[in-house]
């Protein structure tokens, strides 16, 4: 699944580690989400949307 997590994180000048702490997950998991290796669970997706003050659909795109 495509996502704009890295783009949003960088625009907020957050490190992966800082975002991981905000979400309560590991930095490794943030990296895996950003690189598309791991599709996050619903609670993490909602937490990401909350952190970036946006909607889940604007962060994640199921792709073609």
């Amino acid at each position, binding site marked *: 699944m495509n996502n704009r997590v890295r783009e949003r*994180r*960088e625009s907020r*000048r*957050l*490190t*992966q*580690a*800082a975002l*991981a*702490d905000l979400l*309560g*997950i*590991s*930095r*490794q*998991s943030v*990296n*895996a*989400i950003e690189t598309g*290796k*791991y599709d*996050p*669970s619903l609670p*993490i997706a909602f937490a990401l949307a909350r952190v970036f003050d946006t909607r889940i659909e604007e962060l994640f795109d199921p792709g073609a």
Partner: protein
Amino acid sequence: MTRTLDTAHGDRERTAAYNRDFWPGMVAYGVVLAGVLAWGGLDGTSPWRFLWVALPVLPALWVLRAVVRHLGRIDDYQRQLVFRGLSVGFGTAMIVSLTAGFAMIAGFTWIGLPWVIYGAGMIGWVVGQAIASRR
């Protein structure tokens, strides 16, 4: 700056908690094992040797508890990686065990077989987890 290779505070806390759980058990295991091997008289005839040989199980249970508690602390993605590694390790140990079993039926003598199975399982776990982490 958006440095990406720094460590999250939560990661450090989880690692520290795991170390606090794991290492006392591991050190106790080493001490008990060394004591049993040195003074347990495992090659003797005393019936006590059966008790001594089972004694390292107690600290090993502590280590097991540490691993289970760690699985409860890590997040979904990390748990996924650990389980993939564990499944490779378990599968490897089972395949080696079955193959050795059939080989022994055919008359092959395999000295130290439990250690071979243990080693195969552990190597499978480590290699499996390393591959899962890189994918």
